[in-house]
């Protein structure tokens, strides 16, 4: 049965008896891509248990696919919970702004204004809907493709831009690669750049919250590739052991730079199913379906806040963007792959749904794009006026030796003098 419901071919079907088996993605550059092997259950197939359900009674959710929006942009199924139009429209706007912001920053990289960038194209619903389904007070331990959370929580674009420009207004003081944000004001933890380390930290944060009898939860994100890291397993283990209020999210976007999710062991079973061995409730969700992401995140948040502990969620999506500006996907996957992704585009799907329900229109959408275009342009112009990495306006170099420790240590004092500062 599971053969039919997981997302990929089953290793056991391959019948490999000799030699070392090394998984390959189904198609490589030059081949005609075909996602027909990806099984998409109908919207009606996903049962929605109460959030108080026992993990062992709902293991089927780790192998299915929670969906709300069908191919015709109609909402249905048990996971179709009541979400106010205001939230849906905000979600649509935030996703659109995230995508447009990404495009602008990618362009700024191309013209040499910033040194690096990572877009989240196609994955906007995961950050934005999740963010809207939890509280702004909840602590996010992000991965590097969660800019949608910052935008949804209302961080000014100019603050993100200044970080990417490593200029005098960069709140990370020019110490981090572009997009490795840290925004304590928005309960958004410092992005490491080392993969999955934040996953187990989120569990620790939630353990502290449990001891404090607080009502906040922690949420964290990793990619499909990073589930192979030690920290992923530590996180699930500690979450299972101590039952803290945490949501552990896997963004399965099919690709870890050039390695398909099969290289992370994604061929045998689903990533959500990793949680079953730990006794954690584990959901597998259409990550391109805003309504499904919202409902699943809300379910996990309600569960965490009610003392039922952690939930593991796999958001099944597709990385439309290159890994980063240093990456060229045409070297390892078919050029048109993203166009054939069977679960569509999250913005287009929500937009179509809201137009169908009468909450949105093409006219409003077009006007919004115009507004955002002008806003991004003016914010970027202002951000650049504070400086760029190459063009002057970097943070004061004397700050380079600060914040290594709370107080500067004698070796750093000496070295700062040696540099002549």
């Amino acid at each position, binding site marked *: 049965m599971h053969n039919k419901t997981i997302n990929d071919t089953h290793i056991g079907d391959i019948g490999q008896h000799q030699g070392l088996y090394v998984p390959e993605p189904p198609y490589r550059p030059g081949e005609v891509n075909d996602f027909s092997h990806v099984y998409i259950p109908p919207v009606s197939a996903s049962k929605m248990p109460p959030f108080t359900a026992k993990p062992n009674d709902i293991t089927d959710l780790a192998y299915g696919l929670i969906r709300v929006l069908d191919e015709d942009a109609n909402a249905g199924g048990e996971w179709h919970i009541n979400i106010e139009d205001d939230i849906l429209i905000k979600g649509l706007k935030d996703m659109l702004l995230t995508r447009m912001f990404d495009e602008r920053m990618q362009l700024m990289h191309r013209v040499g204004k910033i040194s690096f960038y990572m877009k989240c194209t196609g994955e906007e619903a995961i950050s934005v809907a999740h963010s809207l389904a939890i509280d702004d007070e909840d*602590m996010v*331990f992000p991965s590097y493709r969660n800019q949608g959370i910052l935008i949804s929580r209302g961080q000014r674009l100019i603050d993100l831009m200044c970080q990417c420009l490593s200029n005098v207004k*960069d*709140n*990370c*003081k020019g*110490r*981090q690669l572009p997009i*490795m944000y*840290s*925004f*304590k004001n928005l309960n958004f*933890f*410092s992005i*490491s*750049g*080392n993969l999955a*380390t934040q996953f*187990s*930290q*989120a*569990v*620790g*944060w*939630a*353990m*502290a*919250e449990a*001891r*404090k009898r607080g009502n906040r939860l*922690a949420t964290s994100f990793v990619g499909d590739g990073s589930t192979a890291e*030690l*920290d992923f397993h*530590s*996180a699930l*283990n*500690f979450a299972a*052991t101590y039952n803290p209020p945490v949501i552990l999210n896997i963004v399965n976007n099919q690709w870890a730079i050039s390695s398909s999710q099969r290289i992370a062991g994604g061929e045998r079973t689903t990533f959500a199913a990793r949680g079953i061995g730990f006794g954690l409730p584990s959901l597998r969700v259409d990550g391109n379906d805003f309504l499904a992401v919202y409902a699943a995140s809300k379910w996990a948040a309600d569960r965490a806040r009610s003392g039922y502990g952690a939930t593991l969620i796999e958001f099944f999506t597709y990385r439309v963007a290159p890994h980063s500006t240093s990456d060229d996907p045409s070297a390892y996957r078919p050029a048109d792959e993203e166009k054939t992704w069977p679960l569509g585009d999250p913005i287009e799907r929500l937009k179509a749904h809201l137009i169908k329900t009468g909450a949105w229109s093409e006219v409003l959408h077009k006007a919004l794009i115009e507004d955002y275009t002008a806003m991004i342009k003016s914010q970027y112009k202002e951000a650049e006026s504070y400086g760029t990495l190459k063009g002057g306006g970097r943070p004061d170099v004397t700050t380079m030796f*600060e*914040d*290594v*420790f*709370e107080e500067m*240590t*004698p*070796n750093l004092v*000496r070295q700062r003098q040696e540099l002549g500062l």
Partner: protein
Amino acid sequence: MAQMNMLEAILSAQKIMLERDDAVMIFGEDVGYFGGVFRATDGLQSQFGTERVFDTPISENGIIATAIGMSVNGIRPVAEIQFADYIYPAFDQIVSEASRLRYRSGGEFSTNITVRTPCGGGIRGGQTHSQSPEGIFTHVSGIKVVMPSTPYDAKGLLISAIESNDPVLFFEPKRLYNGPFYGNPDTPSVGWDSHDKGEVPEGYYSIPLGQADICRSGDAMTIITYGTMVHVVETAVKQTGVDAEIIDLRTLSPIDYDTIINSVNKTGRCLIAHEATKTGGFGAEILSIIQENCFWKLRAPIERVTGWDIPYPHAFEWEYFPGPHRVVDAINRIMEA
């Protein structure tokens, strides 16, 4: 004042900090109900409850990662890694996360974790219960590295470590837990009641991080050491009758430049002794500091007495351990040069 061995001093420091600061939480493998395999947390869970003192899964990575996460949520975690030899699964969390969090976030986030871990050999522990990996961590910017050599220092330094808003790695030379070790395994063990620094105040006190201790003043030469080797060096100095100044670093990072430089400039001769392996060890850093700052005052080549560059061998423990005879030979060479 009370008589305490080093374990009792470490236990006392933790108990005091649990009493003084509700944010302190203590955890690690076997530290809860059982009180730790060395008994360094004995009785703390029954006194302070399971939410503040508890057992963890056998996951050093998870222990340090969750400690970091807790610290971001207002907790002051004290994590035990059962043996320093087992710290490596936590290496990424220590090096890439705890040590850099304040810096990389522009000072927005920081972590105050204290990581306690028994280190060093001389207990028939073989290569998995004897290592001294401090030099691996002194190479890392953003984390403080401490190694006491007496109960008095252990308590005062551990309290400072827990109070510090920076991450601190607190290495405990386990051969010194029950008494000073003078380097000869064939002589009967003595307890800390035989040593001045086995006298430990029962209440709160702290010793600042970053300050070395001159445990013997002298003019003929300087010996810079830390941990178990402090006592081995004292034995050797007594045997030679040389008027050596012995510096116990106590904190390796940040290092106390002034105490080292002033002493070597005064004596012109220097020996460095540590139990850890030689190549790339912390002794090399001390040696470089001296050469950079004291070269024109030196009257003899600087020497290092260290463990050999091999894993700690079970059957050849005392051939590995840099015992008093090796220190004596080095002292004599340096004095004759």
